[in-house]
């Protein structure tokens, strides 16, 4: 190369200047491209607000259900009242028979039916037998199912205690002994990190990380597509068409994306959870330490993929579905350990998998960075590997581009 005649320090300075130039140039391109700006800024800022607004309530309270009371005794009515008193369900309809309840259910007026048998009171009171309560759950959304199941279980267990106490006392035990017999082993349950078991508190942290990941990915692919469409700008520093400059380009651009997303991360991962009262018991400094390898890995990963992008819309048109796939691969919905082993290994390719889990560990579960060191280390490894692949991709596809443009000339 032509600048070998300069001393090393001078050459380094030139290189840094070039990186700075690429960096500034890339920031300008981002701001001046409407489509990219929409993805980076509108989506990057609005989506972290939009999702918490849509997932507004932690849980559905007072799910409407119908009840068929074939027993119609004081005890059965009391049972229905207890059911209606739970947070989860509300007995809105009392039906004469199952057909009537089914009609309401089919019209989506209720999301479940509870049926008390004709011998409800007789079994419990008179013969000391078992009463079978039928519960029909709406499976169209698992939150409906969960609500009705929880409420029925809770009321059932509560009744067990009462009935058992009564029966033990009747058979000649005193009250303390009856209590011991009814429950010889007690238990306490503690739901950690998301005490209400709320849906938004569990899903939104993962979505926030994925918003950062996907907007960055599509933005970078779009920028690469634009550069490809207009000229060979992807592979050259402006005005220096015939100089190899892979490292300077990858670094300069990578840091431009990194800078923008550092700001967006503070906003989406730090501010938004506090704004909407989502769990945020982690140390914010740990989150920022985590964000560094996550953003670098994401940027270099996206730059690697972007080498194959021909037009600005390519990635978004063809790969948009990946958002849902990545959400699944992260294991925040379906447990990661229960993914088939092929998909579990496939998931390791994507920085989002580790980013989502590490963020949940720190932000939601209050882990320190060292307690989520597996994910943290994996992100650094990915950052390194994808930096390499990005450079290789730029270098080789740049060469192909050169050969083609020489051919054209």
């Amino acid at each position: 190369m032509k600048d070998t005649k300069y001393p090393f320090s001078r050459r380094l300075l030139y290189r840094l200047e070039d990186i700075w130039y690429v960096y500034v140039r890339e920031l300008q391109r981002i701001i001046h491209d409407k489509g990219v700006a929409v993805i980076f800024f509108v989506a990057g800022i609005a989506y972290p607000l939009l999702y918490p607004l849509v997932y507004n309530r932690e849980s559905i309270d007072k799910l409407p259900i119908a009840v068929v009371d074939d027993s119609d005794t004081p005890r059965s009515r009391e049972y229905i009242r207890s059911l209606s008193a739970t947070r989860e369900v509300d007995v809105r309809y009392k039906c004469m028979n199952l057909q009537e309840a089914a009609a309401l259910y089919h019209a989506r007026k209720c999301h479940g039916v509870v049926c008390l048998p004709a011998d409800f009171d007789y079994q419990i009171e008179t013969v000391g037998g078992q009463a079978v309560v039928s519960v029909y759950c709406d499976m169209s959304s698992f939150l409906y199912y969960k609500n009705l199941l929880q409420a029925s279980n809770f009321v059932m267990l509560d009744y067990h205690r009462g009935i058992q106490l009564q029966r033990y006392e009747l058979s000649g035990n005193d009250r303390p002994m009856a209590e011991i017999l009814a429950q010889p082993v007690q238990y306490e349950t503690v739901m950690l990190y998301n005490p209400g078991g709320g849906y938004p508190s569990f899903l939104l942290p993962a979505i926030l990380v994925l918003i950062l990941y996907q907007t960055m990915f599509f933005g970078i692919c779009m920028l690469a597509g634009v550069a490809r469409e207009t000229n060979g700008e992807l592979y050259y520093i402006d005005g220096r068409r015939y100089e190899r400059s892979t490292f300077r380009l990858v670094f300069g651009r990578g840091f431009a994306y990194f800078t923008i997303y550092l700001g967006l991360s503070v906003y989406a991962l730090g501010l938004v959870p506090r704004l909407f009262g989502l769990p945020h018991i982690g140390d914010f400094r740990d989150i920022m330490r985590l964000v560094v390898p996550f953003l670098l890995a994401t940027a270099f990963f996206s730059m690697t993929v972007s080498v194959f992008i021909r037009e600005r819309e390519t990635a978004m048109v063809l790969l948009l579905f990946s958002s849902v796939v990545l959400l699944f691969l992260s294991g925040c919905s379906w447990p990661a350990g229960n993914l088939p082993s092929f998909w579990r290994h496939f998931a390791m390719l994507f920085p989002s998998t580790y980013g989502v889990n590490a963020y949940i560990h720190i932000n939601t579960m209050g882990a320190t960075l060292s307690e989520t060191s597996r994910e943290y280390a994996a992100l650094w490894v990915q950052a390194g590997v994808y930096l390499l692949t990005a450079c290789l991709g730029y270098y080789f596809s740049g060469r192909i581009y050169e050969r083609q443009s020489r051919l054209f000339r």
Partner: protein
Amino acid sequence: MSSLKAVFFRELRQMFARPGYPFVAVLGMAFCCLFFLTVMDEGLPQRLPVGIVDHDGSSIARMLKREVDAGQSVRVVAEYASYTDARQAMQRGEIYAFLVIPENLYGDLLSYKRPTLTLYANSAYTLGGTLTYRQLTTMANLVSAAVQREVLRSRGYRDDQIMALIQPIVLDTHAIGNPWVNYSVYLSSTLLPGLLGMIVLMLSAFSMTHELKMRTSPDWLQAAGDHVPTAVLGKMLPYTILFTILGWAMNVLMYKVMHFPLAGSFLFLCLATAAYVVAMQAVAVFVVSWLPTPGLAVSLCALYSTLSLTLSGFSYPVEAMLSPFQALTWLVPLRHYYLITVDQTLLGLPVAKSCLRLAILLAAVLLPLPLSGRLKKAMSDPEFIGD
């Protein structure tokens, strides 16, 4: 009619000139089917990892451990010396729940002191947390039941009397339409159509904006005899056919090959799939007519289709959303398609009950009509940039 044919064949030629896009889109859909139909192959997660902190170490504590491990939905992966160790393992994501067995459990049990077991479950991961929590509470109840049974047997009760004492009320739970509580059935039956719609929307919008970008839109308009609806119809039709067939293949895969529950009419479901594809295309036409700037329209379609997965309300019920979003769900074709799916697969309602939703899907075609003047301006003047 002849101009419609002209546009139709013109689009077919373009599809084959840029074979990458339709080909990769079909491949993408195939990937999604493969992914979602294999990723949850257990139906409901089995053998989830849990831990035990045993402060007792007696034979009954060890029995308890074995009982927990024998359950279908959990397995004991580790024993921890203290609560802190177990908590850290949970924070590392190694276990979803753990059980703390108190000191002197056996002694307290024998002397009727009612020892207390403590269960901790991680609800930051809802499915794993809930399932392990449920299994461990069941175990804790069973421990009490087992002790009761021994005491009652020693007092000479018969086994049927004992059962009635231990469990005076029995719940007979019916999960309607999905008796196995299969997670894949629940998620895939809506997610896959959702992704199909996403791909249709993006590809349809792209095929239109590409004309604007390449300045070929005047030619496109001319082929349609200067009539915008013909131009749009002819352009969309190849994609309608392609993706309807793809949607039907998806239905066959889910309901005929994988045997997802299907209580209602398969034919009607397929009809709904076609209507849904058309509705998504109508949305694409609407967005492009409204914002005929190539980059912007495609970005906006992307934002819309991502959000529509959420707004369909299949995972998070619509009634829990803020009221403005509840109203917005009417503008989401996936919402209507999801409700038709529920009618036909889970409930098995007569098709007449789902016709209203089908009509709404088809009515989406009217959506872009008022904007056809704007689209015409953009098509005939490629320099036109929507404001």
